[in-house]
C-alpha cells in the first residue's frame, strides 16, 4: 500500500514560546482525593490507571482528602513546611552568592521542594538515596548541615569534596546520600545495584533514586527499570517531571504520547503518577512504594509532576525559550504555599507565623553563609592545597601521579 500523502517528520513543540500565552489545559488534573489507593500487593497490571492519573490529596482550598491522605500530625507537617522553606531560603542565598561572583554555578529547586523533603520524611534515614542535582531538599531533610553544603558550594578549605566537584554535586556517606553525578542517569541503575546488594545480604534497607523527565531518555533509565524488574529489586525509582530539560519541553523527552510513569508498565512494574507539589500526596506515594520494596513485593516507579519555576541553573536564561507568564500559570501551584495553606486551614499555622519563619530561616542561612565564607569561597579562596588534586584518583597514589605532583611543584 502506498501512502496518499508523503511522509512527514513530527517534531513536538511546547504549548507556548516567548511572547505566546501559555495554556496548561493539556494537563489533566483529577480532583484531590479521587484516585484509589491500591494495596501494595496489588499486581501491577491491575493498577495501570495509576500511571495516567494524578494522585492528589490537597485541593485548591488546602483541604486534604481521599485514601492517599497520610494523616500526618501537625508537628510533622510543620517540620515538612519548615524544611521546604529552609531549602528555598538556602537556594536563594546560594543563588545570590553565585550572582555576586562568590562561586561558579548554582542550581535551585524552586517549586520542587515538596519532592526531596516529603520523600526524605517518608523513607527511613538508613535507606540509601541516589539523587540528582535538584534534590538539595532531600539532603537538608536528612539533617545534613547546611554548613557542609555551603562549604561544597564555595569549594573552600572545609569542602569535604576537596574543591573537586562543581557546586551542588554533594556527596555524604553519613547522610547515605550518593555522590551526585554530572553524567545524567548513570546513578539510577547504580541505585538498583545497591538495592540488589541489600537484597543479596538480606538487609532491610532499600534504595531510592531520582531522575529528571528529560534524562529518562538515556539508556541507563532503561537499564535501571530492566534490572529492577528482573530481580524484583527493593528500590523506589522517581521521575521528577518538572516540564523542562534546560530549554527543552518534556514532549521532546516523550511526554507527548504518554506519561513518564507509564514507562514502568512495559516492565511489569507498578507506577504512581503524583501531584509533585502536593506534600501529602508525595509523602503518601513514597511511603506506599517504600513499603512495597521493604516487604519484598518489588520496585515502584513514581512520576512526580511539578514545574521548574526558576532557571535550569545560573548559566541559563529561560526567557529565551519559554513564556515569562508560564510559571505564574502553572496549575499545581507552589508546594510551600499549598502546605502552609493546609496547615492554616487546620488552624495550625498562620500567615504571620509563615512570614516570621521565613525571616528566621533567612537569618539562619545567612549566619551559616558567613561562617562558610570564613572558610573561603571559590572566587577568593582559600581552597584545598593544589597537591590534594592527586589524591583519591586511586586508593594508593601510583608513581606516575607522584611524579606529576612533583612536576607541579607543590
Amino acid at each position, binding site marked *: 500500500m502506498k501512502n496518499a500523502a508523503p511522509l512527514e517528520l513530527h517534531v513536538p513543540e511546547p504549548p507556548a514560546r516567548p511572547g505566546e500565552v501559555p495554556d496548561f489545559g493539556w494537563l489533566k488534573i483529577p480532583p484531590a482525593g479521587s484516585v484509589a489507593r491500591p494495596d501494595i500487593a496489588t499486581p501491577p497490571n491491575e493498577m495501570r490507571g495509576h500511571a495516567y492519573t494524578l494522585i492528589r490529596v490537597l485541593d485548591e482550598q488546602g483541604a486534604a482528602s481521599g485514601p492517599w491522605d497520610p494523616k500526618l500530625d501537625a508537628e510533622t507537617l510543620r517540620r515538612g513546611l519548615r524544611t521546604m522553606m529552609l531549602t528555598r531560603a538556602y537556594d536563594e542565598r546560594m543563588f545570590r552568592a553565585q550572582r555576586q561572583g562568590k562561586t561558579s554555578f548554582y542550581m535551585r529547586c524552586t517549586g520542587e521542594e515538596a519532592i526531596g523533603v516529603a520523600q526524605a520524611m517518608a523513607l527511613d534515614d538508613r535507606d540509601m538515596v541516589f539523587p540528582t542535582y535538584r534534590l538539595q531538599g532531600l539532603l537538608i531533610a536528612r539533617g545534613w548541615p547546611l554548613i557542609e553544603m555551603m562549604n561544597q558550594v564555595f569549594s573552600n578549605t572545609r*569542602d569535604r569534596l576537596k574543591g573537586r566537584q562543581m557546586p551542588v554535586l554533594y556527596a555524604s556517606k553519613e547522610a547515605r546520600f550518593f555522590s551526585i553525578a554530572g553524567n545524567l542517569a548513570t546513578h539510577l541503575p547504580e541505585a538498583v545495584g545497591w538495592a540488589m546488594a541489600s537484597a543479596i545480604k538480606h538487609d532491610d534497607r532499600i534504595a531510592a533514586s531520582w531522575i529528571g523527565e528529560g534524562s529518562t531518555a*538515556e539508556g541507563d533509565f532503561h537499564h535501571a527499570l530492566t534490572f529492577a524488574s528482573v530481580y524484583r529489586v527493593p528500590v523506589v525509582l522517581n521521575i521528577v517531571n518538572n516540564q523542562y530539560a534546560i530549554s527543552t519541553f518534556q514532549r521532546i523527552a516523550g511526554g507527548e504520547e504518554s506519561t513518564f510513569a507509564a514507562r514502568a508498565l512495559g516492565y511489569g512494574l507498578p507506577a504512581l503518577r503524583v501531584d509533585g507539589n502536593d506534600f501529602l500526596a508525595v509523602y503518601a506515594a513514597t511511603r506506599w512504594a517504600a513499603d512495597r520494596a521493604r516487604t519484598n513485593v518489588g520496585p515502584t516507579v513514581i512520576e512526580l509532576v511539578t514545574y521548574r519555576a526558576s532557571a535550569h541553573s545560573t548559566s541559563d536564561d529561560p526567557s529565551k525559550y519559554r513564556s515569562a507568564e508560564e510559571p505564574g500559570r502553572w496549575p499545581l501551584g507552589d508546594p510551600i504555599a499549598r502546605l502552609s495553606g493546609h496547615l492554616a486551614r487546620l488552624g495550625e499555622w498562620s500567615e504571620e507565623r509563615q512570614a516570621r519563619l521565613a525571616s528566621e530561616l533567612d537569618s539562619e542561612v545567612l549566619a551559616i553563609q558567613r561562617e562558610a565564607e570564613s572558610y573561603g569561597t571559590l572566587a577568593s579562596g582559600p581552597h584545598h592545597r593544589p597537591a590534594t588534586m592527586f589524591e583519591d584518583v586511586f586508593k594508593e597514589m601510583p608513581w606516575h601521579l607522584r611524579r*606529576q605532583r612533583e612536576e607541579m611543584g*607543590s
Partner: protein
Amino acid sequence: MPRMNMVQALNSAMDVMMARDENVVVFGEDVGYFGGVFRCTEGLQKKYGRDRAFDTPIAESGILAAAIGMGVYGLRPVVEIQFADYIYPATDQLVSTAARLRYRSAGAFTAPITVRSPCGGGIFGGQTHSQSPEAIFTHVCGLKTVIPSNPYDAKGLLISAIEDDDPVIFLEPKRIYNGPFDGHHDRPVIPWSEHPASEVPAGHYTVSLGQAACVRPGAEVTVLTYGTMVHVALAGAEEAGVDAEILDLRTLIPLDIETIVASVGKTGRCLIVHEATRTSGFGAELAALVQEHCFYALEAPIVRITGWDTPYPHALEWDYFPGPRRVAEGLKRVMAD
C-alpha cells in the same frame, strides 16, 4: 570581511552548508529553538525549519544512532553533543557503527556524519564539563578527529567535516569560543575581534582536513599542539624567550606527519602540549611518531606538557590547566638537555 568569534564562525559554517545542501540537518540537545547552550546553532531552526534543525531527547547514543541512520539514507547530519564529557554514552554507536560501517559493508553503507562537541576546561566546569577525550577517538580506526583553534579555521574545518564522506569528530575548545585565551586567566579577556583569525568570509570556503598550520615559525624547538593550547603555547614560548616553531595540528586523524617531521628535523627538539590527561593521551602517539621519524635529529627527550592524570578539579582548575608557565618550563626543559 566580517569579524566573527568561534561561535559565530561555527554557526556560519552550518548556515552555509544548510543553504547549499538540503541534506544537511542539525540536531542535538537544546539545539533547535534555543540554538544550543553555547548558541552555536542559533537561528538555524527559524531559517531552515523544524525538520532540519531540532531538539532531541537526552540520549547521546540515540542522537548518534539517528545520525548514522540518516547518513545511511543519504543525509549529512551534523549533531551536537552538549559537552564532550557526555559523549561516552554514545561510544558504542561511534566505535561499532560510525567508525566501522564503511569497512564492514565494504563501502555499501557509510555514515557521513559530523559530531560537534565543546571540549576542554577553563570555565570552572569541574570534572564533567572540561574533558578532552580526543585520544580515545584517535585510537578508533575509521574516525577523523578535528580540533580548531580559531574562528577562521573553525568555519573552514567544519565545512570540510560536513562535506567529508567519513565520520568526523569535531571538538570545539569551549574556552576559546569567545576569545583567544592564552592561559592567563587572571588577565582581562581578549575578544576574537582583535585577532586576525576572526576575519571570516561570510560564504563557503574550506580548510582541508589533515593539514597542520605553523602559527609561529622558529628554529630552536618544535611545539606540537592544538585547540586552546595553541594560544597558551604562543604565550609560553614568549615567556620562555625560546624561538619555538609552533604547529597547530588542527586535525589529529589524519595527521599532517610531513609538516611535523620537517619541523622537528629542522629544530631537533620537540615539546608536545595538550590539555587532556597525559597517560595514553594523543601526545603519546605524537611522541612515538616523532621519535620513529626523527630519532637521529632529536637532541633531547621529547617533553609532554599536559593536563594531569586526574579528573579536572573544580576549584583547582588553574593548577590543573597546563598554562603558559608550565609550557615555558617545558620549553626550558627541552632546551636544557
